[in-house]
Structure formats: structure tokens, C-alpha cells
């Protein structure tokens, strides 16, 4: 305790020091010293230069490696040499060119350098001279290092920078610098074709270090410097800006505040422990310490609230309000972590208060008159139901304000924290309910009063809180289940362990039901409101984006006018489109620029088919005009909002711009398209809905599918159509599809019916959810309990672990679980392979179809003309629409056509196919190859199949999705079924193990228990074992041993008694013999004097009588000494708490007898201080306990109660043993009276004498067959 206090004091002092540091140090360390900041900037500039230099030195190293490798693998070819470079293929590459400048082979991230290598010019010259270059290509900048390998040139590449015009959460920008250098560092790269003479002059004047002026008066200067290649040409210019003093101060302060908060947290926890202990142990200052404990707990919770707002914590997902947050007192539930902390603090406070009020809760209390008892019960019942209601409201708020589906299990920290919070709240509620339940039965004359009051309270709440009636439907069964469990425990029908197990099961069941109800309500609300709004607003957004984009085109009409005149037209549409709002949100759209003759001069489209050319149908319009169009592509209707405007010069038409925005359903953010290229550019996603397994379909007015991404077979039931078409707000409808019931929310819009459907749960789903919750809560309760037991009751745990029976059970479970675990792993792996094959087969079939179409096309061309042209993009688009998958077509490794040309034009995808794939198709005869690709954060697969046309080799590449999401989606149901089957399997094994284990372990336990009882002195025990096996022999042997022991004890007692008598007789004889001799001699002397008559008889008589009297006195003294010796030793009484004496006396019995006899203790809250001799009192109590124990032949119970009663300590020991008849009862305190064959009859007389020596009294009541009650009263010390 003293050590703890010292640690607390130290941590409190440390907290103060850290607080001072947080207030003062940042100001001192982050002073706006310009010279210091400039030095820091120069250091950073040098670090950037070093890193850049490292790049080309690495390339130089690779050149040497390549030269060595080329010699070593001459026979295997150049590709093998490239492989030896061990390239990081996402950012490094190597491309080998022949003497004719033709690309031969390549590996990794490379550009198609053929134009550079084949065309004479500065690039060709630099490459010939073997000098490094910086090359810009669409979205990337590369550094190129030319290397000669024999007659060939290998260009080694290293990516410096990547940033596409498309923005999406999946696409990541790349910068070669390490993250620590990126902050405050802007780099502009310069292609080798740029004229950099101006930069050269500036940097020559400023010695490669230009100081930019600060933008504000408190700002700091920036440092601009060039990054140069080995030949001193400028590769990039870098602008470094220093963080401002305030930002530096804020960061430093946050760091110190973090340390301060952690230190305060430590001292608060220590203070809680100290106060908690004091409150429990010191009754005089309990009120104050309890108040302080609760105050510190509140302060600790508040501290966490502050702590969670520090940047370091704020960025953690567990502190994200997007995962869970709802309004409560002071934002205590603003994130999953905050909810967990609040719930744990509540649980701690409840546990602390329950510990303090333990005595009050457990004692039955004095009986009250029934009106008072009724009022008390009614208040307690109302409060209990109110608490249940509050819990339900918290549960509802948690579900409605969380983006996690609490029944879709995951290992995310937030998910676990939310469930642990709910469990902590449920335990707090259970504690409060238990307390209130005890309060309601306290003082009640019987069960009817609390029961009636509970029903009354439920009725009152149901009437006044009608909206929460449903809550009561859940709460009342829960309450009833807990009452039944408590009753079963009180009456001894269920043991504590089983009650806890069943309580965990009841809580899990309750939570599973409550979660299902609330999640169902939430999902329905989500569908009926949020998702419906999302669908309805799609057109609004399209219209808005179109208006904004048209305005942008107006502002940039110079570009258009130039295009109309026919100059710089090739990418005008792309450049203009890139500036529109539609482009910034990656909206499926197209911009077409037409000349005065109506010919398209420039066009750019994002996922809009090239065949979509609405211009012909649009009337001339000098202002922007918006038209809604529905076009059919390959049997599928697509809707567009089209804006067009004609430009005139006077009366002369210059040209037209047509901007079209698609109203494609795939753009809806809640749909997962399973199309890699589409998902890659998705700007607005709703990740929380991925867990919802939501279905979506669009129907025409006859109930037929217009859009059916979930591949339903049956359309809407015809009989429901009129009702659905007339209900604007939408309605729920059910129908059967492929044997399963679909429940969909349908609403009409734009002359169609939109349907959103939620999965319906089967019984297996519900059972699996319950089991998962049960396991989770079991683990959450079991692990801390095990940890607590390990920390606080080590010897018992050691015994538990060493227990033979537990090892038997554990062996059975391990034998069962290991194969199950292996089965689960292999099953998952097996199904992953199965699904992979399924996905690949589908892609292979699509690729084969594509190949056939293309081959037919090329064959027809060969028939008609001599020169074969590659398949046009329109054909590829048609194939793509037909198979519902994107298609890329490569010729000799270079892209020819694609259904998503924009991906290649914008530099997201390379125009060269993967070098290794190309090499394998060149050298091996694979029919197809699959490959995993990763773009930023998005991973997908491609399947490539080759076919030959003339001397060219064509490759068809199909991207298809196959990642964890697809596997999880496909395997979820299967895994759930397996889990359920596994749970049954484990339960069956556990049951079997228990049954089999019982056959072995139970007899051993009986023997162990018998041995322990014998060690306590119970020789009346006799064990029984029915089966006629080896165990029976052992039992008979044990019983014979006990009988023999009893006999020997009797003989020993008799012999000891005889020996004691003999010894006593010898001592008495010896002591008595000594005085007898002088008496005899005196008597003889007197007789002789009398017979002689010579001497003075009177004198002789006087002398002899004096001798005899003296010796008789000696004899009396000897007798007194023997008497003293036979008496018990005197009592050594000291003030002590009788409850503690009882606890110490009971401890060994409680440990040993748990299997056969339950010992229940019920001690009052106040100490029972008496003047007692601990050892003597324990001896007396032990005598009563042994008698009670011997009176119980099988299972039974011994109840020990102790409490204060009118200046006396009342102790009651009650057993459920055989009891005594009145004629036996009246003799039990007589010495040597015993009903037991081997009893000495001294135990109870001695015990009675000890109690009486303590100034107390004893009373025994008994009834044959009902048991015995011993009542002891001891005087309390007066206060």
C-alpha cells in the first residue's frame, strides 16, 4: 500500500512537470528563428538531392549488373538478363531495343519508347551518347538510363512521379521521395525536350539556391533549387517551404500533452485503486472515499475525452465518429472507443457500488409491513424496467448511428469495441437489476408482493410509454429468465458455474434478438429513405453537373473556337472535358466537338460508347439546350442528359459542342459493379453498405427487368404492379425467385419501378449469429476471468491446470478441435480454389467468344482485301457490351483497341502489355495466362489469350474482379453453415467427452473427496460405486481401509486410555507412597510407646499426630496438583471479529467439500467484535462443523450465518443432515455420550464448555430427517 502511494505521488508530480513542459517548451523550441529555419531547409534540400542522386546511382549499378548478366545468360536471351536485375516492377523497368529501334523485349514499368528511339532528334542523340534523360508521359515522369548490351540498347527506367487527371480514393499519386521528406516539398519535373535555359541562368546566378520571399509577414522564406542529373542538366526544380512556427508549436504541444495525459491517466488509475481499497476496508471514511472514487472515475473518463481529441488518437479508426457516434452527455459516445470507455467506467462504478453494498444486498433484512414492502418493490421494479428501457435506447442509438453491421463479424477493433461496450453495459444493467431485485424482495413477506409489483410496473410503463412497448416485450422475458436463474441458484438446483453459463447464453440470445430487430429497422429505414433519395437525386446531380460543365465550356470557348477553325484539335475535347465538373467527379460523360459540316473534329468520352452520337437528332441552338435522351445499346436502354450549343460568327455556323452525361444505374454509389475499371474510378462510394448485401433492380411498367445486376430470374409479380405503380412513396413487396423469398422495397420513378431488396435471414443464419455472439461474449467474459484467477488465485489455478479431470476434458477437446481447425482451413482454401476456377472459367469463356468474333472479323478482311487492319475500337466496344466485360486488344504487345481507351490515354494503364506475359507467350505455348494487377489500392486479375493473324500475334486481355471481397461474398453463406456445423460438432464432442470423462473422472473425484473427508476426521464415510469394475474393487478397498482405520483408532484410543491410567496410577502411587511411609512409621511409633508405657506417651502422641497431619497435608497438596493438572488450560482472550474466525474455520472445509457439500456463508456487514480465544473458539466451531459433516451422508448443505443481535454475536450453523431424535438431543452435551460407534462423547461437551467460558450460550434444535441447527450467542464488546 505504501509503495502504491509512493508510485501515485511520483506519477502525480511527473504529470505536473509534463503539464509545465506542454505549456512552456513548445514556445521555447519553436521560436521563429529565420537563420535556424534556413539551416533546416538546407539540410532538407541536401537530403532530397541525396535521394535523387541515389536513384541514378542505383540505375548505374543496374547497368553494370545488366552487363554482367547479359554475358552469363547469353544463351537464354536478353529477357533472362532483364530478370536478373530484380526490378521492383511497379516503379522500375527495362526495355530492350534492337538496332532498328524496334522494341524486342521488356520487363516492369516501361513506356513505349519506340518513337523516341526510332526518330532522329535530340532524344536519339542522347540515347546514343548513353546519357540519362527525364521523360514525361501522360501521367508519369521517368528517369531513363540507356545501357548498351551488345548491339542492343536497353533503357532502364525508374518512375519519379505519377498523378492522373482522374481522382479517386483507389488511385494513389506517386512521388519518389520518402514520406518524411514530402511534407512542404513541391517538385516540378522537366522533360528533356523542354527549354530550361531560363532556369539555368537563374540558378547559375544564385548558385543553385534561390530564396523565395515569404508570402505573409509571419511566414518563412522558401528555398528553390534544381535536381540535376549526372551531366548537370536540370531534371526537376524543388520548392521547399518550412513549417510555420505556430504549426511547429502545435505539434510540439500535442506531443507534450500526450505524455501529460498518459501520466495523468496512470496517476488516476493508481488513485482509483487506493481509494477503492480504502473505501472497502475503512468503514469510518467510506462515504468520503467512495465519493472521491466516483469523482476520480468521472475525471478519468473526462481525461479520455480530452485525450481522444489529440491528433495521434483522432486519426485512429476507433476514434472515428463515422463508425459510431451518437449524442449523449458531453459527447461521451462520440466514437467506438468513447462508447467503450464510457461503458467500462459505468461498469466499474456499478461494480464498486455493488461491492460496497454487498452486505446490504445479500442480507434478507427485517420484515416490513406489506404496504411498505409493496412500495419498495414497486419503486425497485419501476426503476429496473426504466433501466432496461434506457439500455434498449442505448442499443438502438448504437445501431442506428453506426456504420458497422454488428451482426457481420469482423476482427476490426471498432467492431470488437462496440460489442464489448454493449456487453459492459449489459453487465452494468445486470448488476443494477440484481441490486434492485434484492431491494424489492428485502423485507417482503413472500414472493407474491415483488411479483405483483413487477407486473404493475410493467403495466404502468406500457401505458405511459406506448412507443416503447416493443422494448418491454423484449425486456420482460429477459427479466423473467434472470429471475428464474436466480431462483434456481438460490434453491440449489443450479450451481454457480452453470448459472453463469446460462446467464451468458441468455444475454447472447437477448442481444442477438435485439440486434436483429434494431438492425432490421435500421436497414429498412436506410432503404426507404437514404437509398431511395440517392436514386431520386441521381438526375438532379447529373442536371447540376451538366449546367456547371456547360458554364465551364462557355468560359473556355477560345479552345473550342480554335478547334472549329481546325487547328490543335486532336485533344481539345479531352482538355475541355478535363476542366468540367463532370470530369472531376468521374461522371460517365462525353464531349463531342463538331465542325460546321457536322463532322466530329474532337471527342472524349468516359465510359460512353463511341457509337453514341446524339448530335444528328438535336435542333440548332445558339444557347445551351438540355435534352433527355434514351438510347438502346446492344439491347439495353441507356439514359442521357445531353446539352448542346452551336457557335456562330455572325450568321455563319462555326461548329457545335455536345456534352452528354449518362444516367447509368451503375453510377449509383451503393452498387458494387464487379468491374475493375469502373471501381477504380469510383469517386463516391458508400463502404458501409458493402456489409448490407443489398440487391437492386429496375423494372419496366410490366414488371420486366431493365437492369438486373443481381441476376434475378423472376420479375415483379403482375398482381402487385398496379399497387406499386400508384404508390409514389414506395411499398414493400415479396415474391419467390429461385426458391428463395425476396423482400423488396419498390417505388415508381421516371416511368419505371425501382426495387431495393434486403436479404431474408434463414433459421441457420439466426442460429449462427446467436452462436457467434455467444462465443464472442463467452471469450470476453472468460478471458478476463481467467486472467483475474491467474493473478489473484494462483494456487487454485495451478490446481485447476494440474487437475486430472481437466486434462482429460482438454485432451478430448484438442483431439476434436485440431481436425476441425484443419478442416476449416482446408475448406476455405478449397473453396477459394473452386471460386477462382469459376471466375477464371467465366473470363476464359468471354475471352474465347471475343477471340472468335475477332478472328471472324480478320478472316472476312483477308477474304476481301490484301492488307489486314486491326479490329477497330467500335468492334471491341460491341464485344465488351455483349460480354459485360472490358476488353483490351494488343498487337505484338502494343495496345491496338480498348473498350476503355480513356484509361490508356490518361496514363492510368500502360500501352504495353506486361513484359513477362508477352515473353511467355512468345516462348511458350500457353493457351491463356492470368495475372494479378494492382492499381493504387485496387487489385484485380487479367486473363490474356493469344491468337495469330499472319505474322502478327494478337492478345485479348480481359480484366475481371477476384479479390477477398468476391471470395468473402461467395463464401459467406458456406462459411456460416460450416461454423454452425462446427459448433454442433464441438458441442457433441464436449458432451461425449464429458460423458466419457465422467466414467473415468467421477469415481476418482469421489475417492479424492472421501480421502479429504477422512483427513478432516470423518471416519463415518462409506463410498459406493455401482458398476462392477476395477473401480468398485478400489472403492471396497477404500471402505475397508476406513473401517480398519476406525478400528485401529478405537484400539489406539483404548490403549492410550489404559496407558494413561497406568501412568497416572504409577504417578499417584509414587506420590502417595512417599507421605504414607512417615504416617505408617509415626503410627507404629505411637503404638510402641503406648505398649512400652515408659516414655511420655503424650509427647509421642503429639509428635506423631503432628507428623501424620503434615503428611496428610502433603497428600492433599498432591491431590490438588493432580486436580489442577487434569483441568484445561486457561483462556487467552483478545478482541477479535467473530466473522473472521468463522471464515478461517470454514476455509479448509470449503475447499475440500465442494463436490459433496455446499457451504453457504451469510455474514452481516458490521464486524462482530468479541473477546475470544481464537484457537479455542475455532476448536469449538470445528466440533460443530464435523458433527454437521458426519450427519450428511450424501450431497447436502451447511449454512453458516453470523450477525449482531442486541449486544450479542449470533452464530448459526445449520445442516441438512439426518438430524436427531429428542431423546438423543437431550444428552448430547453429557460427557462420554455418543451415538457413533467410535465416538468419545467429549467433542460437544468440550465445545459447550469453551462457549460458556467465553460468557456465551449454546442451543441446539434438531429434527430427524430435516437437519440440525446450532445457535451460539457470544457477548459483543461494548462500544
Amino acid at each position, binding site marked *: 500500500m505504501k509503495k502504491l502511494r509512493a508510485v501515485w505521488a511520483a506519477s502525480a508530480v511527473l504529470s505536473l512537470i509534463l503539464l509545465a513542459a506542454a505549456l512552456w517548451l513548445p514556445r521555447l523550441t519553436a521560436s521563429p528563428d529565420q537563420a535556424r529555419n534556413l539551416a533546416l531547409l538546407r539540410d532538407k534540400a541536401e537530403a532530397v538531392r541525396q535521394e535523387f542522386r541515389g536513384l541514378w546511382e542505383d540505375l548505374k549499378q543496374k547497368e553494370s549488373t545488366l552487363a554482367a548478366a547479359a554475358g552469363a545468360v547469353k544463351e537464354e536471351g536478353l529477357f533472362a538478363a532483364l530478370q536478373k536485375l530484380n526490378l521492383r516492377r511497379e516503379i522500375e523497368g527495362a526495355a530492350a531495343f534492337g538496332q532498328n529501334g524496334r522494341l524486342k523485349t521488356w520487363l516492369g514499368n516501361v513506356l513505349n519508347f519506340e518513337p523516341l528511339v526510332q526518330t532522329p532528334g535530340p532524344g536519339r542523340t542522347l540515347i546514343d551518347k548513353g546519357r540519362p534523360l527525364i521523360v514525361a508521359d501522360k501521367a508519369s515522369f521517368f528517369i531513363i538510363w540507356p545501357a548498351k548490351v551488345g548491339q542492343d540498347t536497353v533503357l532502364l527506367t525508374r518512375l519519379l512521379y505519377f498523378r492522373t487527371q482522374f481522382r479517386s480514393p483507389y488511385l494513389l499519386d506517386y512521388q519518389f521521395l520518402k514520406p518524411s521528406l514530402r511534407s512542404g516539398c513541391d517538385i516540378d519535373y522537366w522533360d528533356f525536350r523542354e527549354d530550361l535555359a531560363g532556369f539555368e541562368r537563374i540558378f547559375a546566378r544564385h548558385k543553385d539556391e534561390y530564396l523565395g520571399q515569404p508570402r505573409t509577414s509571419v511566414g518563412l522564406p522558401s528555398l528553390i533549387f534544381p535536381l540535376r542529373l549526372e551531366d548537370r542538366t536540370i531534371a526537376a526544380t524543388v520548392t521547399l517551404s518550412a513549417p510555420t512556427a505556430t504549426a511547429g508549436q502545435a505539434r510540439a504541444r500535442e506531443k507534450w500533452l500526450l505524455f501529460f495525459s498518459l501520466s495523468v491517466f496512470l496517476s488516476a488509475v493508481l488513485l482509483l485503486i487506493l481509494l477503492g481499497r480504502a473505501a472497502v476496508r475503512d468503514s469510518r471514511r467510506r462515504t468520503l472515499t467512495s465519493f472521491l472514487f466516483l469523482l476520480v472515475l468521472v475525471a478519468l473518463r473526462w481525461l479520455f475525452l480530452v485525450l481522444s481529441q489529440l491528433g495521434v488518437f483522432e486519426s485512429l479508426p476507433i476514434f472515428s465518429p463515422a463508425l459510431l457516434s451518437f449524442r449523449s452527455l458531453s459527447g461521451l459516445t462520440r466514437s467506438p472507443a468513447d462508447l467503450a470507455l464510457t461503458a467500462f467506467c459505468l461498469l466499474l462504478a456499478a461494480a464498486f457500488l455493488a461491492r460496497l453494498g454487498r452486505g446490504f444486498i445479500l442480507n434478507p433484512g427485517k420484515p416490513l409491513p406489506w404496504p411498505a414492502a409493496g412500495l419498495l418493490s414497486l419503486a425497485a421494479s419501476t426503476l429496473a424496467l426504466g433501466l432496461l428501457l434506457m439500455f434498449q435506447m442505448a442499443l438502438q442509438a448504437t445501431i442506428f448511428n453506426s456504420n458497422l453491421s454488428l451482426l457481420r463479424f469482423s476482427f476490426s477493433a471498432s467492431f470488437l469495441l462496440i460489442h464489448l461496450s454493449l456487453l459492459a453495459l449489459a453487465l452494468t444493467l445486470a448488476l443494477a437489476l440484481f441490486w434492485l431485485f434484492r431491494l424489492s424482495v428485502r423485507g417482503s413477506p413472500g414472493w407474491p408482493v415483488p411479483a405483483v409489483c413487477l407486473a404493475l410496473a410493467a403495466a404502468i410503463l406500457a401505458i405511459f410509454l406506448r412507443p416503447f412497448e416493443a422494448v418491454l416485450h423484449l425486456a420482460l422475458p429477459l427479466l423473467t429468465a434472470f429471475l428464474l436463474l436466480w431462483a434456481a441458484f438460490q434453491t440449489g438446483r443450479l450451481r454457480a458455474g452453470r448459472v453463469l453459463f446460462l446467464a451468458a447464453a441468455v444475454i447472447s440470445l437477448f442481444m442477438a434478438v435485439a440486434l436483429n430487430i434494431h438492425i432490421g429497422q435500421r436497414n429498412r*429505414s436506410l432503404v426507404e429513405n437514404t437509398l431511395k433519395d440517392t436514386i431520386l*437525386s441521381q438526375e438532379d446531380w447529373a442536371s447540376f453537373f451538366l449546367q456547371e460543365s456547360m458554364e465551364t465550356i462557355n468560359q473556355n470557348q477560345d479552345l473550342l473556337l480554335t478547334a472549329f477553325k481546325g487547328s490543335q484539335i486532336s485533344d481539345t475535347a479531352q482538355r475541355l472535358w478535363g476542366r468540367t465538373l463532370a470530369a472531376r467527379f468521374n461522371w460517365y460523360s462525353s464531349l463531342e466537338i463538331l465542325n460546321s459540316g457536322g463532322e466530329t473534329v474532337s471527342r472524349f468520352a468516359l465510359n460512353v460508347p463511341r457509337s453514341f452520337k446524339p448530335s444528328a437528332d438535336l435542333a440548332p441552338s445558339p444557347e445551351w439546350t438540355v435534352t433527355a435522351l434514351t438510347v438502346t445499346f446492344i439491347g439495353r436502354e441507356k439514359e442521357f442528359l445531353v446539352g448542346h450549343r452551336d457557335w456562330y460568327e455572325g450568321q455563319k455556323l462555326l461548329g457545335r459542342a455536345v456534352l452528354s452525361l449518362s444516367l447509368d444505374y451503375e453510377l449509383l454509389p451503393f452498387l458494387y459493379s464487379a468491374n475493375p475499371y469502373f471501381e477504380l474510378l469510383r469517386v463516391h462510394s458508400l463502404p458501409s453498405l458493402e456489409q448490407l448485401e443489398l440487391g437492386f433492380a429496375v423494372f419496366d411498367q410490366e414488371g420486366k427487368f431493365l437492369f438486373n445486376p443481381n441476376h434475378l430470374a423472376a420479375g415483379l409479380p403482375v398482381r402487385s404492379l398496379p399497387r406499386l405503380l400508384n404508390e409514389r412513396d414506395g411499398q414493400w413487396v415479396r415474391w419467390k425467385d429461385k426458391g428463395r423469398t425476396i423482400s423488396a422495397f419498390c417505388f415508381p420513378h421516371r416511368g419505371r419501378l425501382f426495387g431495393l431488396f434486403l436479404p431474408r435471414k434463414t433459421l441457420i443464419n439466426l442460429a449462427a449469429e446467436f452462436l457467434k455472439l455467444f462465443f464472442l461474449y463467452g471469450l470476453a467474459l472468460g478471458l478476463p476471468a481467467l486472467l483475474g484467477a491467474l493473478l489473484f488465485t494462483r494456487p487454485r489455478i495451478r490446481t485447476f491446470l494440474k487437475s486430472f479431470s481437466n486434462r482429460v476434458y482438454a485432451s478430448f477437446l484438442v483431439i476434436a478441435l485440431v481436425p476441425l481447425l484443419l478442416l476449416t482451413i482446408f475448406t476455405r482454401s478449397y473453396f477459394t480454389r473452386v471460386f477462382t476456377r469459376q471466375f477464371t472459367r467465366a473470363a476464359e469463356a468471354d475471352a474465347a467468344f471475343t477471340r472468335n468474333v475477332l478472328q471472324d472479323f480478320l478472316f472476312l478482311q483477308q477474304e476481301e482485301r490484301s492488307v489486314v487492319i486491326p479490329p477497330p475500337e467500335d468492334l471491341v466496344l460491341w464485344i465488351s457490351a455483349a460480354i459485360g466485360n472490358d476488353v483490351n486488344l494488343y498487337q505484338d504487345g502494343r495496345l491496338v483497341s480498348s473498350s476503355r481507351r480513356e484509361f490508356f490515354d490518361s496514363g492510368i494503364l500502360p500501352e504495353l502489355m506486361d513484359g513477362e506475359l508477352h515473353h511467355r507467350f512468345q516462348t511458350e505455348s500457353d493457351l491463356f495466362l492470368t495475372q494479378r494487377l494492382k492499381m493504387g489500392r485496387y487489385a484485380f486479375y487479367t486473363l490474356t489469350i493469344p491468337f495469330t493473324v499472319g505474322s502478327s500475334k494478337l492478345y485479348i486481355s480481359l480484366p475481371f474482379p477476384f479479390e477477398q471481397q468476391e471470395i468473402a461474398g461467395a463464401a459467406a453463406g458456406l462459411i456460416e453453415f460450416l461454423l454452425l456445423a462446427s459448433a454442433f460438432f464441438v458441442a457433441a464432442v464436449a458432451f461425449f467427452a464429458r460423458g466419457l470423462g465422467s466414467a473415468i473422472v467421477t469415481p476418482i473425484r469421489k475417492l479424492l473427496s472421501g480421502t479429504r473427508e477422512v483427513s478432516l476426521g470423518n471416519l463415518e464415510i462409506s463410498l459406493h460405486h455401482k458398476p462392477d469394475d476395477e473401480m468398485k474393487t478400489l472403492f471396497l478397498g477404500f471402505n475397508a481401509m476406513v473401517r480398519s482405520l476406525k478400528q485401529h483408532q478405537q484400539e489406539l484410543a483404548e490403549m492410550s486410555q489404559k496407558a494413561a491410567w497406568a501412568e497416572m496410577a504409577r504417578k499417584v502411587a509414587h506420590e502417595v507412597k512417599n507421605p504414607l511411609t512417615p504416617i505408617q512409621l509415626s503410627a507404629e511409633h505411637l503404638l510402641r510407646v503406648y505398649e512400652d508405657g515408659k516414655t511420655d506417651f503424650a509427647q509421642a502422641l503429639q509428635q506423631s499426630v503432628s507428623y501424620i497431619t503434615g503428611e496428610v497435608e502433603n497428600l492433599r497438596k498432591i491431590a490438588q496438583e493432580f486436580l489442577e493438572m487434569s483441568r484445561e488450560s486457561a483462556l487467552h482472550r483478545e478482541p477479535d471479529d467473530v466473522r473472521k474466525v468463522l471464515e478461517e474455520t470454514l476455509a479448509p472445509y470449503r475447499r475440500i467439500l465442494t463436490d459433496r457439500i455446499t457451504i453457504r456463508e451469510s455474514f452481516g456487514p458490521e464486524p462482530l467484535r468479541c473477546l475470544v480465544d481464537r484457537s479455542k473458539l475455532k476448536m469449538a466451531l470445528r466440533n460443530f462443523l464435523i458433527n454437521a459433516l458426519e450427519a450428511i451422508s450424501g450431497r447436502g448443505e451447511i449454512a453458516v450465518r453470523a450477525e449482531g443481535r442486541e449486544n450479542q454475536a449470533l452464530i448459526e450453523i445449520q445442516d441438512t443432515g439426518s438430524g436427531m431424535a429428542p431423546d438423543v438431543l437431550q444428552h448430547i452435551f453429557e460427557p462420554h455420550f455418543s451415538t457413533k460407534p467410535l465416538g468419545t462423547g467429549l467433542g460437544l461437551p468440550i465445545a459447550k464448555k469453551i462457549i460458556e467460558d467465553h460468557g456465551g450460550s449454546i442451543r441446539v434444535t434438531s429434527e430427524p430427517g430435516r437437519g440440525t441447527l446450532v445457535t451460539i450467542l457470544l457477548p459483543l464488546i461494548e462500544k
Partner: protein
Amino acid sequence: MAHIGLSVVSLLLSLLSAAAIDVESSFLENRPDLLLFHLSSRSGISLSLPEPVSFSDQISPEQSYFLFQGILARFLTQEFFSESDLPAWLDKDRLILKARWSFRDNKTNNQYAFRLFILFKLEKQPAQSSGRSAGGRDSTKRSNPWKIIEIKAEKI
């Protein structure tokens, strides 16, 4: 009859104007409670905010409140103004307002600007009880039927 229709439209437009002012105030005065008040109690809100906020999902009004509380605590608003004029006539129950929001990251001192696109929806029956009350609501605000159901943003 036409007179009544005009009055209703005028009232709705003035309420929309009040809602736009509240949104502006919530950013300028760092008061997410003003924003919460204009979120629908029946529907979740879809948010799509690019870097440095980086958030895209649908969340409940209460989650939005805490999310914006965190955003406004970290990113100090430097300017916020509406870039689109309020409509002169109502032909739909949905409207998108455009606003420019410039802010400074308290952590890094970097400055950013977003263009916000806020989709308002005219809710037929304003919710009388939205579960929990937000501080500072008055009766006029409680009856405002214009609710934000979606916010998109682009970095400029």
C-alpha cells in the same frame, strides 16, 4: 388559389435562404449543431469529401454532427460563401447549392479550398421529434422543411 401557391413558394424560398445562412454560420462559427439541425431525421446523409478530409460514406445525422465537429475543430474555416444564387421559383423538391469553403489545417498550417455541393430536400412532414434535441434550436428552425441529404465536394 394562385395567391396561396405564391405565398407557399415565397415561404419555402425564405426557409431555404435561412437554411443556407445556417450552413454558412455553422462553418464560419464552428457550430456543427446548426448543421445538424438541417439534417433529415428520417434519412442518412451521403458525404463525399476529398483530401485532406478524405471521407466518403453515408452516415446518420448524429454521426454527421460529430464528424463535422472533428472536421471544424481541425480545419479552421477562413472563408465560406455561397457561389450559387437561390432560385427564383421552385419546380422541384430538391436543390443543390454551391459554396466555396477555404480552410487551414491546424496541424500542418496548410491551406485548402473546397467547392461544396449541398443537396437540399424538401421534406413533406418535418419530423416533430428527431430523437435528441440539439442545443440552441428555436421553434422557427424546428419547422424548416429543407433538409440536407447529400454533400459532395471537390478540391480546388
